[in-house]
Structure formats: C-alpha cells, structure tokens
C-alpha cells in the first residue's frame, strides 16, 4: 500500500451532484487553469503577429543599409542597435520571426509527429515490424543531426511553396524523426500492455483506432516535451544550414543567421548584435516549452479537479 493510497477515495465520487451544464470554453479553461501557459501563449502569439505583419510592425526595412549608423548601440532610434551594415536589428528580429516560426515550428512538428506515429506503431505491432522500424531508426540515429540535414538538402532540389523553403523543413524534420520515435516507443511499450489496450483489442477495434484513439493520447506527454525541445534545435539547425549556405541566405533576416554571420567578428564592439537574437531565440524556446508543458497538463484529465 502506498502512502498516496488513503487519499485516493477523496476524489469526488458523490453520485448525487450532477455537473452543472455550461457551455464549455476550452480556451478560457486553459487560461484559468494554466496561467503560465497563457503567458507563453501570448508571447507565441506576439511572435506570430510580428511575423505575419512584419511590414506594419517593424520600424525600418530589415534590408536597408545605413552607413551613418554602423554598429550603433541601442538607442531611441534603434531599440536593439544596428549591425555591421547599419541595418536595424529590431526590424530584422521582427522579420526573422517568420523564418523562425515557419522553419522551427513546422519542422519540429512534422518530425515529432511522424516520429511519434512510428514509435507507437513500432511498440503496438512488435515483433518483426518493431525490429525493422528500430533498425531503420538506428541507421538514422548514426548520423549527427546536421549531417543528415545536409544530405537531405543536397539530395533534393530546392522546392519552395509561398516563399517557404519546404526542402529545408524536410531536411530538419527527418533527423528529428528517429529521436522522437525512440522515446515515444519506450512510453508506448508500457501503454501497449495496459489492460485498456487489451480491452480494445478484445473488442475487435481496428489497428488504426487502437493506435490513434487509445495509445496516442496516452503518450502525448513525451511527445509534447520532445516537440517543444526540438523547436529550439530546429531554429539552431536552420542557422547552421544557413551558415553553410544551404538554408536561408544573407541578406534575408533570420535569427540564426544574425547570430552566426559576421556577428562573430564584431560581438566585442557590438555585443547587442548577438545579445538580442539570442534573447529572441531563448524567449521563443522558453515560450514553446512552457506552452507545451501547460498543454500537456491541460490535456490530461487526471490533473483536473
């Protein structure tokens, strides 16, 4: 008997009190139950807003070169200072949030979701299928993230939809797949042997239903943690690829590029060149992590009173 045991029956079990019927507002519920999540959502929303409406929000053209104020420190004119070409860092950050959100979030989302499905399927079917999927995952895991992304970028033709580099998204998503698949499989293995999965099998449900309806919701915690953690990695991978000339290229405004370009040469004279993009990336990562955690708790019915 565990110590928690005596507390268990305390969970409301009154048979008499019917729940008051009210129009459920999931969004308001989320804000009420997860105030930190709501704050992080506001940050993400602000980033999205800045990304979509960059021309309206940004004080300057991100590409405008101003030789009069090279490496200017933060001031009333340039809130975050300027870089070596006199470009306004604040404006570049605002435009850069497009790239960060689209590439970072999308590639992490695609990679983690495919990885999660692969991981659950691997755990559910077991046997030969599990072996094959896991050996494939092993092969992918043998390559460092950046090397694998390089191979993918090099192997496919450049392909963009609406100005978004799909090629780059795929290149960053693929190395994420095996990493997520491995972790989710471990969690799914314990769900696989739970009696409610046996009950679903005994009821004769289809494999798809069991995987998506009965197993997937119960491994959502590791999935969300991996997803949010990989957003940061994806933004940095995008920067590395850009640095190697395979991703977005100068003079496009991108956070990773701002950190890795000639900022390295000037950071002693102009620390704001790396300070503000660094803060932007950290803030984005922090917000996504926090949001992911809150979402996980919010989605878990066991955390509700």
């Amino acid at each position, binding site marked *: 008997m565990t*110590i928690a045991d005596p507390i268990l029956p305390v969970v409301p079990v009154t048979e008499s009190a019917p*729940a008051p019927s009210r129009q459920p507002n999931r969004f308001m519920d989320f804000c009420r139950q997860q105030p930190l999540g709501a704050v992080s959502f506001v940050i993400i929303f602000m980033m999205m807003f800045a990304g979509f409406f960059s021309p309206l929000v940004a004080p300057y053209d991100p590409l405008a070169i101003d030789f009069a104020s090279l490496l200017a420190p933060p001031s009333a004119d340039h809130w975050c200072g300027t870089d070596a070409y006199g470009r306004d860092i604040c404006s570049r950050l605002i435009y850069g949030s497009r790239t960060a959100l689209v590439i970072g979030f999308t590639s992490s989302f695609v990679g983690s979701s495919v990885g999660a499905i692969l991981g659950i399927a691997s755990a559910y079917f077991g046997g030969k299928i599990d072996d094959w999927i896991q050996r494939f995952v092993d092969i992918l895991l043998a390559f460092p993230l950046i090397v694998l992304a390089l191979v993918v970028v090099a192997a496919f033709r450049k392909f963009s939809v609406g100005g978004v580099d799909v090629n780059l998204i795929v290149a960053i998503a693929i190395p994420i797949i095996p990493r997520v698949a491995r972790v989710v499989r471990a969690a799914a293995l314990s769900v696989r042997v739970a009696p409610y999965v046996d009950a679903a099998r005994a009821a*004769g449900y289809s494999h798809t239903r069991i995987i998506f309806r009965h197993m997937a919701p119960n491994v959502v915690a590791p999935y969300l943690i991996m997803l949010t953690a990989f957003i940061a990695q994806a933004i940095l991978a995008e920067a590395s690829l850009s640095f190697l000339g395979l991703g977005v290229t100068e003079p496009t405004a991108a956070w990773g590029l701002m950190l890795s370009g000639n900022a390295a040469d000037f950071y002693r004279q102009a620390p704001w060149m790396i300070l503000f993009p660094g803060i932007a990336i950290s803030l984005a990562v922090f917000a996504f992590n926090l949001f992911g955690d809150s979402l996980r708790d919010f989605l878990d019915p066991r955390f509700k009173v």
Partner: protein
Amino acid sequence: MTVVEADKDVRGRPDAQPGATAPLLQVEDLHTQFHTSRGIVRAVEGVSFSVDRGEVVAIVGESGSGKSVTALSIMRLLPRLTGKIPQGRVTFDGRNLLDLDDEQMREIRGRDISMIFQEPMTSLNPILTIGLQIKEPLQIHLGMSDDEAQARAIELLNLVGITDPERRLDQYPHQFSGGMRQRVMIAIGLACNPKLIIADEPTTALDVTIQAQILELMKNLSRKLNIALIIITHNLGVVARYADRVIVMYAARVAEQGPAEQLFHKPRHPYTMGLLRSVPRLDHPRGSKLETIEGLPPNLANVSTACRFAPRCPFRIPVCEQEPPLYPTDTGSLSRCHRHAEIAEGKITWSSLGGVGLNFAANTEAPVLSVRHLTKHFSVSGGLRGASGTVRAVEDVSFDIYPGETLGLVGESGCGKTTVGRLILRLEEPSAGEIHFEGVNLSTGSAAELKAMRRKVQVIFQDPYSSLNPRMTVGQIIGEPLHVYKIVSGRKQNEERVADLLENVGLRPEMAERYPHQLSGGQRQRVGIARALAMEPSFIVCDEAVSALDVSIQGQIINLLEELQRKFRLAYLFIAHDLAVVRHISARVVVMYFGRVMEIADRDVIYGGSLHPYTKVLLDAAPVPDPTIEKQREPRLIKGELPSHLAPPTGCVFNTRCPLASQECREVIPPLEEKRPGHFAACIKV
C-alpha cells in the same frame, strides 16, 4: 511448518525488564492529516489502542479507512510536506515517539520497531544480494562486524525457513520466489530483535498456499520470540486465524475494537456485522445472494458530524446525526454505535436479502464455448549466454461452458488461468488445440465470423484502475463499441444507450461525463462491466474481476454480475484465486495447477468431496473468517513452492508438492479421467 526452531533464545526475555506490565505500544487519540491541493484530508481521527508485548493485533478496514496511515504515523514515515500529526500520543516502551527528533526515530525504526510491506517483489533492492540487505541493519543499528553479521544472517534465514542459507545469502532477489522474498523481508524485520513488527498487508500479494505458510511463520515467530505484531489487512480470514485482538477501522475512525473471538461471533457495530456477512465463505452453506453494504465510504476531505457509517447503515435512527463515542459493550469490546445495546439484545439483525437463486439445472443445450486440448507455449530467450527454453503456460486444457452458466477457474499465480482467458479472447494465439465458440472454430473461421465473435466474447479485467483509458470519459468508453459496431446510429441514440447501460450496472447516467480517475474502484469496475455489455455479448471472461476490490464493494459487484447473468443469459468464465468467491458464483469449477487441469466438477462436489490432492490442499490453506474454526484446525500446510517453468517436473506436475506422491507419479503424466459422473480428476492415486 516446523521451521521455527530457535534453539537458543535470541534476545533477552522482555518480561525481565522493569515496567513490563505497561503496554508496549500505546496509541492515544491519534490524528493524522494530509494537506492536499483539495483541502485537508483527515486520514486518521482520534484512534486509540494499545499493544502488549507478544500480542498479535489486527487492524482491518477497507482502502482509505486509515489503517495504513495509522501504521505510518506510528513509524513517523508520513510524507514530509503533506502529512501532519496535529494531535495524539504514541508511547512506545515509555517514550513518546512523536516527540523524538529524526535521529532518535531512525534508531528506533528497524531496531525496536520494524515494518514488513505488502509487495515482496519491490521491497527488496534488485541489485544488492540478499546477504547484504540482511546484514545492513545489523551493521548500522547494532554495529556488528562483517563476520558477526554474516553469522546472524545465516541464523535468521534458518529461522524463517530458508534452506541452504550460506549459499542463498549471495543470491539476488530475482532468484527467490515471491513467498521466499517475503521470508527474506521477515528475516530483515527480525534482524535487530525488534519488540514490535508492523506488517502492512504482508500476504496480500501471495498465493493462498504460500500465504498460509507465511502467516504460520509469523505467528510462530511472534510467540517464540515474544514479538508484538500489528497486522494490517483487509482479509477477515487472515485476521481470524492469527489475531488476538482486532481493530476495525472505518472512514478514519475506529468503528469497533475488541478480542478476536468476541468481534467475530458477537459483533457490536453494524459495519462489522455487514463486513462479516458480505464475504463469501467456505464454512457456510452458499446463500443465493451475497449480503452487501450498499453505498460508498465517505469523502474524508468533507465529512459531516453525523456517524460516519450512517449513510450506509440500514439501522440508522435520528440520534445517528450525532457522532457516537466508543461505547464499552457487553462483550468487552468497544463499539462506535449508539445502538450497540440493541445489537447486543439481538433486536437488530441484518435482514437476509433472499432473492432468487441461480438455477443450475443440467444443461441440455449445446455449449456456448468449448475448448479442446488447448496448449500455449511461450519461448523465452535472453541473458547474455543466450539461455532459452519453453514455458508451457497452458498444456492440454479442455472444458465446455453452457449458455447462462458460470464456470469457475481457480489456481495459484502462474498456473496458466489468465493465459486460458487470453487465448479465448484471441489476445494470444494458441500453440495447439481448438476453441469453438457457438459452433465456429476460431482457428479456421473466416474473418467475418471472427469479427462477429469479437463482439460476442467480452472481458472484464482485474484492475479497475488500468483497464479504462484515462483519456476518455465514461461515456466515450461505453459508447465506443456502439459506434464502431454501429449498434445504434446517431449521437443522440448513442447517449441514450450509454445512459441505459449505466443504469443497468447501477450507475447514474450523469456519470457519462466523468473521467475514470474521478470514480472509485467499484464504480470503475461497473464501467468496465458496462463496456463489456455494450457489445451485447453472450459470453464474458471475468479475469479476477473482483479481487482488487474492497470486501463490501466486492459483494456488490458479484451480485451485479449474477443479476446481469440472469437478465441477459450470459455465460461467464470466472477466473479467480479466491476459492470462496468462486464457490459463490460458479456452477462448475476447474482447478488448474502449473498449466494443467487437475480437477473439474460441479461446485458442491469440488467444495464438498474433491478428489485431487491439490484441490484438498488449496481448500485447506484458505483462511475462514471464524476464529473458533481457525484455532481448532491444524492446517495441513502444503510444502514447497511452485516448480520452475524452465525445469518442469516429470510425470505429474504436482508430484513435487503432493502428499501422496510416489515413484509412479514422477514417471506417468496422469490423464484427466471421469472418476465419477461429471467429476474429472487428473490423479492416478484416486
């Protein structure tokens, strides 16, 4: 059991000490609270009792009644942040334990008071040898040298009946069986000559034959070494066999306490009376319907000032709006009931529920399910040396189940009874043999036939906590099959049908919006039953369907299952290890041991005139909640443990433990023969 032969007295006689007349442990007005996010939970309120030297005291109660928390409070092992003891005194050997600092308390734990937990599988550290774990307290508390500790460890293993102790000290926990591990736990508990051992559900995780061995051992040790014993349990049979005094707890308070004999024969509290009536019993003629205590225990975060048991009590009167004190009664026990005197005068008795008995007329119809020569072998491989082998989980099992009938399947853990259930449910593929369901051979049937069979054969699992998907509401869980199999069309009708099913299993329709974690164990099990019923099955496998539930809830669920059986003409395969429960619900019983069927017969024949020695031993080992019967009978303890599946015995699988075994038994596999009409047994000696 003859293992307890401590030829020298291992510690100073306690009665030689001054003040030996005072009780060893005196708990006075103990209050324990948990501060949780949902408010303060008063887990123990005003509990007082005392334990004398060498006395065996049992604390009985349902889960959440505060019995384990009482033990943890004595040991001061409550969770540091949430657990608080605002009031009370725990005097042990002249010292108030609640006043001691952590350092002094640590010296007492394991040395003067030791504790034995329920789960022998997880209470031992898997990466340390048994020897190291027994020697640890000796070296820490008594400052023994390694050699001294080694000698004492060997002596202790001898004491708890483990043979070849020198060699076994170097082994790891996984090399011991569950019963042997519990013996090791007891050896660790005894290591420093404690004055008191607190055993929290010490045998709940063990099989019935092993349980009998362990309890006998503990009782003998307690007598021999004059150690006081507090046994915390929900099993009334265990209490009857071993306790001198019994404390019945209900909703954080003591409901009744007194000498075991009095409490069992003359209970003076309605809860105790109800509890004794709601267990199916081997020593009473089988009633047609189990008596139950209706309702649920109260929520401890929010209790009223009325008698805690009043909402469930059939004898409540206006005065029960006031919390009763513990009244002394005519039998010398204490009862927290205003009407204890009327109970003593016999004015209040539980009325029999009566009800229609199940009609077990001889079946003339075709069996709904018929199993022939069912066999399942698992191949195991593993270890760095590539050790491999075959586990014969199920070997040549055959039986029939008729419409509307319950077939009980009993056996100890590892006997293959659960595997039989899983094979019938097609969760595992059989290695050999055939299963016919309503005339269709499940190994050769078409996909459509199998899909139809899936609907007709349903399952209720043991653990109501893990058998429901935590992410789905009750309505979604029950409504899913309706939707998948298009049993009803449209959302509205689905909801109506779910409400209907919920009412069938005794739940309110509003429950559909709840999540499983918001329900109690019994309610969850009802949801599991409703889910099975949604498919409109004709046959349900009940895999230990009531063994995880509290006694009073267990009775409710058994009655529900019987009621549904009559209503929908369901056939059950009732898999269980509790012989009394199986006797209550089954028409016929199959006894399995080590993958094979030992005996099949009608219920009354199995329980009245069984032939197979294993069945006899099994029935002997089961404790009965009656101290008089328990004290009189000399338990014929079954020797030994289950054999290893990797090295199965030759000939009859039971020959290693059988009292009748001869050379022939080690050579011939006994066939399952019809010894009398309708009575099959696999034994060459009968």
